[in-house]
């Protein structure tokens, strides 16, 4: 059973359960409130996933550490490389 098949199977099961509630395929006569909650579910899950992604990206932007030493080391290496290339004749 490949991963793709597993995902397709899982999504189909959840999709079938959603369709059953939304379109009342088994004539279960659920309370109206449950149907009202069920039908926007796919869009709701997408929006929630989007919010989670946005929050994760924002949080990681806010807590990303500045690395002073690495920055200085990189600047030194750039200077060194430029000197080396200038000596070898590359016009900067």
């Amino acid at each position, binding site marked *: 059973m490949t991963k793709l098949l597993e995902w397709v199977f899982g999504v189909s099961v959840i999709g079938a359960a959603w369709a059953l509630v939304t379109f009342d395929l088994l004539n279960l006569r659920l309370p109206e409130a449950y149907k009202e909650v069920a039908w926007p579910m796919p869009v*709701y899950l997408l929006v929630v996933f989007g*919010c989670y992604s946005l929050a994760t990206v924002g949080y990681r932007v806010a807590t990303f550490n*500045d690395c002073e030493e690495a920055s200085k080391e990189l600047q030194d290496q750039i200077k060194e490389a430029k000197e080396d290339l200038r000596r070898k004749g590359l016009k900067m």
Partner: protein
Amino acid sequence: MATGADQAVGMGLVGFSILLFTYYTIWVIILPFVDSDHVAHQYFLQREYSVILPGIAALILLLSVGTFIGVVTWKNRKPKKVD
């Protein structure tokens, strides 16, 4: 820790997504269980819009991404070299 603008933008994104999540969750999940004469209902649009508005937002996002790619590709077109 990241400083200044980075922190502001990051925390702004976090705050915005929390607000959006809360409003949308109340709209989709909580409101159907609240009596239709409760005052909370006047702060939310009709239920249909809870699906239409994200749909329009997704459409705008796709159009923006496509337009950006198109513009960048157009700007980087080079004439064919003749050897």
